[in-house]
């Protein structure tokens, strides 16, 4: 059974290698069907293996841990690292999300990307992504995790810039990679610090060592904050959130898979995985919570002001991950992972439905040019609505369960009313607003400019995943993952009923506000006040970074284009040439001058004789 789990990441890798290696053996491009079979099939089998392994091993023993040692990676002094996998329930949840949702999105992609000239490249990247993501979640040491971490970053980069001919896509891709790399570097430094302190990077050993009472709390705080740096980069949290909205330049299934369901939640996974270290540091926990709270509000407001359907979803993703961070910050570990899971379901559903909309509208993404689509693409409408309901956490949807857990835990953690809880509740309201605003604008009312040419583009390859995801988004709340073995159990305490009531009421209020907003915006069209414009631009972070970092750096690079140190040597050379000219002037060919220099030299020497 362990072997089966080892095959889970390997299968997508094999798929990737086959897809990439095809030109070595065949001159012509293989048909799409073959590519689909390889690309989707490999992930499908991986999903199957995961399911089998889950059923066979873990179902009975929720506390079970499977360690798979593949081979020794490096062993240098105390640095002992293996290519080893560590599978527990936390990993398993992630595995199921990655392979399961991943498989569905792969399947959907086969329909969505049909007839794209780079079909093969697309699936190669996707498979590579799945492999990297699986490595990330299965790694038993932080360096292997980092391998997956960077690997998913690379795939994200490649897929955002998949349609490379448009330079805008490329810029967005670069931005995504570099911004996350900043976080990654912080994380790498965190790794160095952890190794420096504990002489190991193996996660279980690390957790053991940190648990030792003699462990230096200060170092743990710094290290966890540095890891948080990595997490905020990858999960697009404040202050490194700016890349995610731009990342929507990639194909929509990619946004669903990478920028909603899996990769961006890696930060949450990381912190959850390292949670024993975080619990040791008050500061780190607070930081995580504050980052989450701030991000969920900021991104929520930005989502309200967007006009691009995918950007709305992108900001909503940032905001929802903010919830997860908030959950982590208040110690609701399983809540965070639960929300991660449900979010994967409904956000994937939303993105895929949005993809259907976009494809049906011939790549129109502006919601103000849509409207009244509920008649033209009813199935998509249905799916999107389910997704919205779940996202807004309407009762009985999956999102409701997970979000509710977070809010309750936030209340509890600080024993009653506190700002984190308030932020969460306010966020729930905002979520309701932007979710239903986009739903109304796209599907309700009269037809928009682009809706007229709408043609249902769904193929079976697309509808099946949509349907499954819709079911999951609705009922996923019932699938509470048994994470107690990983995170330990917390005593269930029920706060006052009104607290629950507020949490339930908020999305409904949001719905109402959204309706008002929809009515107004339908009339005015795409117009923004100064405030909404500010929200629209993502609170000016892009502008700030551009002026604070990008431009100075570019200017510095331009200024130093020719390497100022080289100027030093060029100066020496020029100086030598000057001396040459000067001395050459002494060789003027005049005998009497020569005689004079001879005499002068003699006098000089005699003078030196006296002087010395």
């Amino acid at each position, binding site marked *: 059974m362990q072997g089966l789990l080892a095959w889970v990441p390997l299968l997508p890798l094999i798929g990737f290698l086959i897809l990439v290696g095809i030109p070595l053996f065949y001159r012509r491009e293989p048909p799409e069907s073959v590519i689909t079979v390889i690309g989707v099939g490999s992930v499908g089998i991986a999903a199957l293996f995961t399911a089998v392994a889950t059923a066979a091993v873990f179902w009975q023993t929720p506390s079970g841990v499977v360690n798979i040692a593949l081979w020794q990676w490096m062993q240098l002094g105390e640095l002992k690292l293996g290519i080893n996998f560590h599978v527990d329930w936390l990993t398993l949840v992630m595995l199921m999300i990655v392979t399961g949702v991943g498989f569905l999105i792969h399947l959907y992609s086969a329909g969505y990307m049909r007839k794209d000239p780079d079909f093969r490249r697309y699936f190669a990247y996707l498979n590579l992504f799945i492999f990297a993501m699986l490595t990330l979640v299965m790694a038993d040491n932080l360096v292997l995790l980092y391998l997956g971490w960077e690997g998913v970053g690379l795939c994200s980069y490649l897929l955002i810039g998949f349609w490379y001919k448009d330079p805008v896509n490329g810029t967005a891709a670069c931005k995504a990679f570099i911004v996350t790399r900043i976080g990654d570097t912080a994380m790498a430094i965190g790794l160095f610090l952890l190794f420096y302190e504990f002489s190991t990077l193996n996660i279980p050993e690390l957790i053991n060592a940190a648990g030792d009472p003699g462990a230096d709390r200060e170092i743990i705080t710094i290290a966890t904050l540095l890891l948080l740096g990595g997490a905020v980069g990858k999960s697009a949290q404040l202050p490194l959130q700016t890349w995610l909205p731009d990342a929507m330049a990639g194909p929509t299934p990619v946004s669903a898979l990478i920028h909603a369901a899996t990769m961006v939640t890696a930060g949450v996974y990381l912190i959850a995985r390292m949670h024993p270290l975080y619990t040791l540091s008050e500061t780190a926990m607070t930081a995580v919570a504050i980052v989450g709270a701030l991000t969920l509000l900021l991104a929520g407001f930005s989502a309200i002001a967007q006009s691009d359907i995918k950007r709305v979803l992108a900001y909503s993703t940032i905001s929802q991950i903010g919830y997860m961070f908030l959950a982590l910050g208040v110690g609701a570990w399983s809540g965070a992972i639960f929300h991660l899971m449900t979010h994967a379901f409904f956000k994937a559903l939303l993105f895929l439905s949005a993809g259907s909309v976009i494809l049906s509208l011939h790549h129109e993404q502006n919601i103000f040019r849509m409207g009244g689509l509920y008649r033209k693409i009813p199935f998509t409408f249905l799916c999107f609505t389910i997704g919205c309901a779940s996202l807004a956490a309407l009762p009985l949807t999956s999102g409701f369960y997970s979000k509710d857990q977070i809010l309750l835990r936030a209340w509890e953690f600080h024993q009653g009313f506190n700002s984190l809880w308030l932020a969460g509740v306010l966020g729930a309201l905002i979520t309701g607003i932007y979710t239903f605003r986009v739903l109304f604008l796209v599907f309700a009312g009269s037809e928009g400019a682009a809706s007229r040419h709408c043609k249902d583009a769904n193929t079976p390859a697309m509808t099946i995943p949509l349907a499954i995801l819709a079911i999951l988004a609705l009922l996923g709340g019932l699938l509470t993952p048994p994470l107690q073995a990983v995170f330990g159990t917390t005593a269930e305490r029920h706060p006052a009923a009104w607290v629950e009531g507020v949490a339930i009421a908020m999305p409904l209020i949001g719905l109402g506000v959204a309706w008002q907003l929809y009515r107004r915006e339908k009339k005015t069209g795409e117009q923004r006040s100064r405030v909404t414009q500010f929200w629209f631009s993502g609170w000016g972070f892009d502008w700030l970074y551009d002026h604070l970092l990008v431009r100075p750096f570019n200017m510095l690079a331009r200024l130093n284009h020719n390497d100022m140190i080289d100027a030093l040597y060029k100066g020496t050379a020029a100086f*030598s*040439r000057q*001396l*040459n*000219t000067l*001395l*050459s002037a*002494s*060789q003027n*060919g005049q*005998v009497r001058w*020569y*005689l004079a*220099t*001879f005499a*002068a*030299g*003699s006098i*000089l*020497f*005699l003078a*030196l*004789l006296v002087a*010395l």
Partner: protein
Amino acid sequence: MSTQELFAILPLLLLSAGIVILLLQVSFWRGHRSALATTLITLLLAAGSCFWVGATLSGGVSSVQATGLLLVDHTALFFCLLLLLTATAVSIMGYSYLRLRCNPERNPGSYPEEFYILLLLAMLGTTTLVCASHFATFFLGLELISLALYPMLGFAVTGDLSPAREQAQSLESAIKYLLLSALSTALGLFGIALVYSAGGALDFSGIAALMPELAQTSALFATGITLFLISVAFKLSLVPFHIWTPDVYQGAPTPTTALIATVSKGAVIGFLLRFFNTLDLYGSPVLINLLSIAAIASMLVGNLLALMQTNIKRLLAYSSIAHIGYLVVAFIIGKSTFGTEAVIYYLVAYIITTLGAFAVVGLVADSVEDRILKGEYPESPPSDADNPYHRDFYRGLLWRSPWLASCLAAMLLSLAGIPLTIGFIGKFYIFTAGVEGQLWVLLAAVVIGSALGLFYYLRLLLTMVQRDPTLTAESTGSVQIAVSGQWLLVVLTAILLLFGIFPQLLINWINAL
């Protein structure tokens, strides 16, 4: 004068005899080749006799004092041998040079044989100089060299087949050298006279006996020695007495340039070694400081002057200034056997390399002269690329005449001190000497000088390998040089590589002195 003394100066006697024979031969039977043959035989005989004399010195007697004027020992004989062999090479170069320009059949007024007589005279001067143990012999030897060199420098004037410009330049170099050299001689003589008036002795061992008193007290003596050294520095073209060097080197017929750059300098170095050793002048910090200053200035100024030079002969002249500067570094470290060894090794390296470089330049110019005489080539070069002394002429030479260019490349690499060549071992000796003497300032100057030097050596080297499609000289095709010249170059390059790769051969020999 005993038989032993006469035998000891056998090389000098053979040279004298050769001169007389050559004079007689020329007056009865003129012929360029036969004159060359006599010269070669004389030089080789004299060189061979060095071995013979050296063999007799191997016993208890390590040196023979021939009268009060000459002292023959192993070192002196080694220098004689080295310089005589150098002169052999120069005479071969001279043949190639004179064959074209001083052809009595074309121009009855030209006397190529005179060149060889003068060469032998100069060699008599050098052998006298390296054996000198008295100021009189020093003076005699030095003047013998100078007096022979004046006409040799101006030799192009007599063979009017040379291009007019070359003739004028040759004359100019002769006059310049004469005036400056005369002044330097006068200064040197004045210095000797002061030394004499301070101590009352002119033979070196006599002065050496007086040294303890003189060195401490007499300003007269110090002034005299300094003036004397200035005149020697002039011959060595140490900065600031270097200024004549490029002009004279450039204007002179190339074989004469080679002679003045190698033989005359080598003889002076040989003499200086003995002079400093006998008088133990290394102990005088003032003189050593003066020499150090001159050495540093030579290394820097010489290399800086050469930096942008396009005329090859001038370039080599400047580079020789720098090289003598390097050599002085080894010279300064003093009396130890290592210092002498380093000086001699470096000198051998310098002589072989310089000789080779000038040989290439001369032979290339001769080949052009050949074509001028055949009317294939304009007498006054229309562009730099057609001037055989200009760097541009060498553009792409490696592709046109690979062997010739390879030889020059080897010489240049040796000058730059790159391994596989004798120049590298020489440079290594300089560094070792500098380290042993802890002369860090001087070593720094050597490093800076070498870095500067690389620039112009490499520029010339890389000019030869340029693949320029707009090659103007490509039309001129390959450079055909005389067979004798080819042999000369091959032998020189072979020695250069041999002693570069297996330096121990030469070291053993030097250490046996």
